[in-house]
């Protein structure tokens, strides 16, 4: 081979090249900072670039799954929804595991690790606080115990095992292009899936939907303002009654009372309560500073109130929004057994909210009080081994939790204790244990409930299917093709000791008399079938009118604004159409406005404020407002800001006392943290008492403010704040500039997230938006239960977890505009043809 001879290479060149090569090899093989090892990452064949090849579904593909008894035909429609046609249920679960893993493997691992407290192994020591919190909750530990009780040959056991087989088949057959994007970014590989992880997911839903620290906030509030006031600020019974179980009324009932005056702060009690908070609760900074406004909606109308004479059902669960979404749409078909379409959780085997050929079902969260706290007496305050119960020492169960980093190195260990009630934590000088329904229930009945609901024929079948279900309690709404509608708040509701039948305090742990006495019978659950009013609706409000049944179910119920709005819309429409149901889901009006807007305007019209030109300008803007929260509306922002100011000024008594507050926040000089915030329903109650001492601002010792003064101050301050932030009133005040949805990727990387999405949502509209925009409508569905069931639906995001895929966020724009997709519901695999069919996956038994 001809060549041009070169001079000998200088040693300096060799050494310099060796140094550079060494550096390149180092950054190629080792992570540097937040970067993964660059060699593997940038490799065009095995690295992140290969992910592009799997971004879109191939027209045809095949895979093998061990244990499959017969081939399974998976047809992806033009929306990327897999329609899984299997010969039996075991196979359908295997196939669903495979298709979930194909689109959502990283999400499945993240949510599993979040429960297990092993995120540090994936993301390093920065995730340690989350892991320690998760393990202190003991969710994975309880899930393991629950799983151990399941007979592997039972339907639930087989479903979990089959699903795991499907997930692992995908993992085992992954080419580099199949490894999700995030694993490349983190420089890690997917973990194998265990059947118990479905139990983890169930526990996680319990944490999301049925976990309450209300007692702790209540204890803090009591220390600040006294017990009598707290009983009314966070009441057992909602002062506005529009219950889920119809009470025969044609309008909401207002049970307003005069709220007891705030008492002076009890500093000793407050110190104890704060100690408890720091030990038990989520980090104080994670607590929302204000009313929690998210929830869910569902409603159904009977044939006599629908335009087409069919029962109609709308489902609209509101959850924390993420990319990828918590939901994954799927259609599961087994001849003569299962033909269910709807949304599934990636990690779980069945349709959680959806429909089949005969019936539709959906849920909202009940929000019942299913957790209690107990002050325990232990033998050694620093290293307890026993706790006192009924005059005798009982051994504590303890276990050592070791946390590992990305390389498997041990980071730290914790000792976690448990009484017969549940996990126990050190809170200042005390030890507190928690009893919680979520850690006492098995995943088996949950799977059974969903499995039976998926195969139900009537509303009664659906209600019966959910009977063994325990937690998190749900308001299950259902409608069938026979024209029936029904709802039941289902789950286990504890019976407390007769001496204190409500769970809103810290119980003395030394007596078993304070333990739960069982669960309420099914007949006492809030429920209704085919009510005379012709419709049913729930939006997390107090489920039963206390005048109908005063039995305790919980306290501090979410505001009824959404429930009132749904009921108002349904009462006014005797010929409801599916499209009207769709429009209702993003209805821009709020019943809250009808109460507070006149109050603001009345206060501004007071002759005492006649000379205040700023107030007059603000009042004029509000008066011109049509009361809606559409994206283009340029008045809604003023009302929203005024409501925030009103809450802040009214509830100053619930703020941490200045010195203690600055110290506890570690941030002297910052605005004091409000320890608890009564919701706007209670604020509406307070509006009825214009001279209540709650209106007085403690900081202004020389003046006694009344209601109208605070309303005026709130409106003026809101106007000033908007002026400062958005300039003069006009286009810049558009609601879309103020309130957004922010849908973060699971790793909270902005480039993978979709932020500042304009939505027609406000804190109290049917499509609510939280202050930071991270919560909202997670799945909207409307089902028409005619002779052939048809449905529409959408969730924010897309089916694929691959950020390079067109299916990653392809539904976002429609979702933000309140539109729904028509859902394809083929009876046979061959029914999807032409443009309706995007991809075919054939799964075959492993040889």
């Amino acid at each position: 081979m001809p060549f041009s001879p070169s001079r000998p290479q200088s040693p300096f060149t060799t050494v310099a090249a060796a140094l550079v090569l060494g550096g390149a090899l180092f950054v190629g093989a080792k992570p540097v900072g937040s970067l993964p090892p660059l060699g593997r990452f940038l490799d065009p064949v095995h690295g992140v670039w290969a992910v592009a090849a799997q971004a879109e579904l191939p027209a045809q593909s095949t895979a093998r799954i061990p244990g499959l008894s017969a081939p399974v035909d998976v047809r992806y429609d033009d929306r990327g929804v897999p329609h899984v046609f299997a010969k039996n249920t075991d196979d359908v679960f295997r196939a669903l595991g495979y298709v979930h893993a194909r689109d959502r493997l990283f999400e499945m691992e993240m949510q599993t690790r979040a429960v297990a407290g092993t995120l540090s192994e994936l993301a390093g020591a920065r995730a340690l606080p989350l892991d320690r919190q998760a393990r202190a909750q003991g969710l994975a530990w309880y899930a393991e115990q629950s799983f151990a009780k399941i007979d592997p040959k039972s339907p639930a056991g087989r479903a979990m095992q089959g699903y795991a087989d499907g997930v692992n088949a995908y993992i085992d057959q992954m080419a580099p292009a199949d490894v999700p994007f995030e694993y490349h970014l983190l420089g890690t590989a997917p973990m194998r899936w265990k059947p118990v992880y479905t139990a983890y997911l169930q526990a996680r839903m319990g944490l999301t939907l049925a976990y309450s620290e209300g007692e702790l906030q209540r204890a803090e509030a009591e220390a600040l303002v006294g017990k009598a006031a707290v009983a009314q600020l966070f009441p057992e019974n909602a002062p506005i009654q529009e219950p889920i179980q119809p009470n025969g009324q044609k309008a909401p009932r207002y049970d307003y009372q005069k709220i007891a005056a705030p008492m002076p702060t009890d500093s000793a009690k407050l110190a104890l309560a704060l100690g408890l908070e720091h030990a038990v609760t989520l980090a104080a900074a994670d607590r929302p500073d204000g009313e929690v406004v998210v929830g869910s909606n569902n409603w159904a109308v009977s044939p006599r109130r629908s335009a087409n004479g069919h029962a109609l059902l709308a489902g609209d669960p509101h959850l924390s929004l993420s990319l990828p979404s918590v939901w994954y749409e799927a259609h599961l078909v087994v001849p003569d057994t299962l033909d269910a379409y709807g949304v599934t959780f990636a990690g779980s085997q069945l349709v959680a909210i959806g429909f089949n050929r005969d019936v539709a079902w959906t849920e909202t969260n009940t929000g019942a009080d299913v957790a209690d706290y107990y002050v325990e007496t232990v033998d050694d305050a620093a290293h307890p081994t026993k706790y006192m119960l009924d005059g005798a020492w009982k051994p504590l169960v303890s276990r050592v939790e070791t946390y590992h980093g990305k390389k498997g190195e041990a980071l730290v260990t914790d000792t976690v204790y448990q009484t017969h009630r549940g996990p126990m934590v050190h809170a200042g000088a005390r030890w507190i244990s928690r009893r919680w329904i979520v850690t006492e229930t098995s995943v088996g009945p949950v799977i059974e409930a969903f499995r039976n609901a998926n195969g139900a024929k009537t509303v009664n079948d659906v209600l019966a299917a959910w009977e063994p279900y325990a937690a998190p309690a749900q308001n299950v709404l259902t409608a069938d093709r026979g024209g029936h509608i029904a709802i039941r708040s289902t789950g286990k509701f504890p019976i407390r000791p007769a001496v204190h039948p409500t769970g809103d305090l810290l119980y003395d742990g030394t007596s078993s008399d304070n333990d739960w006495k069982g669960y309420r019978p099914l007949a006492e659950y809030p429920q209704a079938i085919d009510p005379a009013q012709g419709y049913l609706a729930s939006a997390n409000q107090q489920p039963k009118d206390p005048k109908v049944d005063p039995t305790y179910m919980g306290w501090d119920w979410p505001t009824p604004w959404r429930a009132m709005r749904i009921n108002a819309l349904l009462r006014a429409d005797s010929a409801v159409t599916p499209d009207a149901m769709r429009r209702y889901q993003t209805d821009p009006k709020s019943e809250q406005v009808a109460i507070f807007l006149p109050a603001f305007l009345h206060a501004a019209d007071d002759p005492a404020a006649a000379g205040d030109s700023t107030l007059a300008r603000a009042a004029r803007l509000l008066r011109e407002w049509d009361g809606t929260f559409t994206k283009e509306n340029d008045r809604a922002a003023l009302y929203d800001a005024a409501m925030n100011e009103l809450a802040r000024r009214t509830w100053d008594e619930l703020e941490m006392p200045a010195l203690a507050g600055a110290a506890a926040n570690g941030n002297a000089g910052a605005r004091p943290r409000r320890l608890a915030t009564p919701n706007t329903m209670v604020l509406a109650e307070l509006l009825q008492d214009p001279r209540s001492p709650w209106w007085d601002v403690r900081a202004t010792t020389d003046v006694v403010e009344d209601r109208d003064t605070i309303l005026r101050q709130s409106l003026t301050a809101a106007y000033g704040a908007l002026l400062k932030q958005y300039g003069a009133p006009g286009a810049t005040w558009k609601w879309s500039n103020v309130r957004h949805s922010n849908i973060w990727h699971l790793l909270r990387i902005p480039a993978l997230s979709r932020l500042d999405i304009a939505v027609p949502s406000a804190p109290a509209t049917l499509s609510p938006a939280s202050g930071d925009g991270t919560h909202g409508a997670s799945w909207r569905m409307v089902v028409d239960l005619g002779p052939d069931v048809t449905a529409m639906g959408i969730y924010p995001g897309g089916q694929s977890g691959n950020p390079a895929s067109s299916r990653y966020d392809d539904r976002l724009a429609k979702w933000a505009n309140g539109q729904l997709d028509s859902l394809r519901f083929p009876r046979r695999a061959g029914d999807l043809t032409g443009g309706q069919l995007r991809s075919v996956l054939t799964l075959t038994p492993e040889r």
Partner: protein
Amino acid sequence: MRTLRFVLVIAAFAAATAALGWWGVPLVGAAFGVIAARERGSAALAGLAAMVAWTALLLVDAARGPLGHLASVLAGVLTIRPIGVYGVTIAFAGLLALTSALVARGVAPRGSRLG
């Protein structure tokens, strides 16, 4: 012949990457450094060939999926321009090949050199 040899070196880098991952690049680079030790510019040639090889592999990726979109996503994650993501990838391969060829050339016994 020089062109053919260049193409063969590119193919060697591509094949080694496919078979061995990114480690294939410094290995082929070192081997080429030894083989072409007496040729002027052989290390630069190795670097250039590796860059062309990874560019070709990226083109294969582009033929199989939305590489441009992926580059935009990556650029967002890494907070650099999309062209920078391509640039870093290709430059990384070139750097590995260049430096490994130079080191191999410098340390290999003169008797082992072929040409």
